[in-house]
């Protein structure tokens, strides 16, 4: 990808004696859509606020374009933020809201007018100049908040759960809108969310965080298909996570049955965690399955059926377009490519890090 734009070096931060971020290191490339993803309290918003300048890290440095900006106040940073719940100036019109940053920079009136018009066009709210923020819907207010930030031509746009307050349909529309904006503007977006679907839809690069640590970072495909630990596997989508034994390279024993897989280098007879996505579990006739089970629950989900299958003492979550009624005997088969092997946390410390919420 591109070159580093923002680098966080050994960032630590605690509030009231509680550690929020612990020795965090992160590089953000130019022109990328990066998502910080994690449950509430994982430190993602604090990370964003440190980049924005609203928090000072206890330790560590923030490097922007090769310069240390750790102690620079927010108004001197070349980045803009879209806040949770929009944070519009309710005593100003939409045009005045958007013009705020430009007026502070003493731009000419005609320049400001053009820019406001351009920004409103970019977020599809042309002609809203003289409206007041309170008269707009949540989604519209969110667009104004984005317009207000991008007229300043920041190098980086920080977005702090900007879609959290919107309803589902609006949220999905805004996801595509944000992606389009990013392409049009050609700047870096750093997006904070707890919604894994949102992260998968929009990002070039996902940073999964939990309890102040980065659990894994990579492309959405990599995060989804090759989670590095049980936390990531569990947080990103539904999955079957089963403690198993790696018998040797390319062979793993899951719940007493031997499954072929493609992973190597975990050693022989070593405990591992296995992740199998529900859509990768094939239900076949009992005699054709690697293990046999009974369907215990069935839910229609629209695109597919969701089934629980009790097999060898584990309740498998299965997504399939083919229906198997409750009580029917089935066999479970998994393609070797769809078995993801993960190291079992080695120490107590690591266990704590990857502990699920």
């Amino acid at each position, binding site marked *: 990808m591109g070159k580093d734009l923002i680098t966080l070096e050994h960032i630590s931060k605690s509030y009231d004696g509680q550690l929020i971020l612990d020795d965090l290191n992160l590089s953000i490339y130019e022109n990328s859509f990066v998502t910080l993803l994690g449950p509430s309290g994982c430190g993602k918003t604090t990370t964003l606020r440190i980049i924005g300048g*609203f928090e000072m890290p206890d330790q560590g440095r923030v490097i922007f374009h090769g310069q240390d900006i750790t102690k620079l106040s*927010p108004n001197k940073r070349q980045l803009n933020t879209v*806040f949770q719940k929009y944070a519009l*100036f*309710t*005593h*100003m*019109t939409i045009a005045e809201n958007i013009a705020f940053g430009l007026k*502070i920079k003493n731009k000419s009136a005609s320049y400001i007018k053009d820019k406001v018009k351009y920004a409103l066009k970019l977020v599809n709210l042309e002609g809203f100049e003289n409206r007041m923020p309170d008269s707009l819907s949540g989604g519209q207010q969110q667009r104004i908040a984005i317009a207000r930030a991008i007229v*300043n031509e920041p190098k980086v746009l920080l977005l702090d759960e900007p879609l959290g307050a919107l309803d589902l349909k609006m949220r999905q529309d805004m996801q595509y809108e944000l992606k389009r904006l990013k392409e049009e503007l050609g700047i870096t977006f750093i997006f904070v969310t707890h919604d894994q679907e949102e992260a998968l839809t929009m990002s070039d690069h996902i940073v999964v965080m939990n309890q102040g640590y980065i659990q894994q970072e990579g492309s959405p495909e990599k995060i989804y298909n090759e989670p590095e630990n049980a936390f990531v596997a569990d947080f990103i989508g539904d999955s079957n996570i089963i403690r198993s034994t790696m018998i040797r390279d390319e062979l793993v024993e899951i719940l007493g049955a031997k499954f072929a897989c493609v992973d190597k280098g975990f050693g022989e007879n070593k405990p591992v965690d296995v992740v199998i996505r529900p859509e990768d579990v094939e239900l076949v006739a009992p005699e054709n399955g690697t293990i046999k089970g009974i369907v215990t629950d069935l839910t229609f989900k629209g695109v597919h059926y969701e089934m629980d299958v009790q097999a060898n003492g584990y309740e498998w979550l299965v997504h399939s377009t083919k229906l198997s009624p409750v009580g029917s005997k089935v066999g479970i088969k998994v393609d070797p490519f769809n078995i993801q092997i993960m190291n079992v946390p080695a120490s107590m410390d690591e266990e704590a890090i990857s502990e699920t919420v």
Partner: protein
Amino acid sequence: MKLFKSNKSAGLMASPYIAWALIFIVIPLCMVIYYGITSADGNLTIENIATIFKPGFFKALKRSVFLALISTFVCFILSYPLGMILSSMKLKKNAYIVTLFILPMWMNFLLRTLTWMTLLEKKGVINTIFEFMHLPTISIINTQGAIVLGMVYNFLPFMILPIYNSLNRIDENVINAARDLGADSLQTFWRITLPLSMPGILSGITMVFIPALTTFAISSMLGGSKILLIGNVIEQEFTQLYDWHLGSGLSIVLMIFIFINMIIENLADKGGVNK
């Protein structure tokens, strides 16, 4: 959730309050207006109201407006920084401090003003202490300064609370957004914090200015009998001279002032919030 099944039952529930308002607000107000615009023999007249332009009365009104303005200004200057400090503090601590400022309101207003009298007297508590310490004594009792002091002391909480509330309601991220868009702390204050707290400032001003304009207790206790405010003049008309017509006429003048004050504030409020 709907509290009442229909508008009808809601109206029924409101009837005691309507009766209350009629008996204790509307009827007395009508009586004041009636007495104000009639003479002793029952004829319509504007003489009572016009009396305000006679030198003695006009002087009292001017003095009242002047002292009320000063008191309101002093209250504002004291309250705004305090409101900012309180709203920037953690929740638990500021609740104590707010209570501390409201605490005096639990005591009787006259009692508190009387206390200032004994404190400020020529041979009062403060001067006794000063004398004991061989410091020069002060004599502000029975001056306009003492009246302002009494007004500020008594009405300060009415300024602090609305200002604190309006500052407290400002989302921290709105301030952060202004900083984020390049405003330094001073620009953020002038363009964001101050305009957003304007409703609180305006209601604080109203709540201090009106009682300060109409008070007669503070001025008669701390101002002696020489410094008459318009409130004292009206009180005298009713309780000493028994001229209800003149007293009501002067009250109408005060009401007009209060009315003008509220109109101005309403306009300013609208201008600040929805230009």
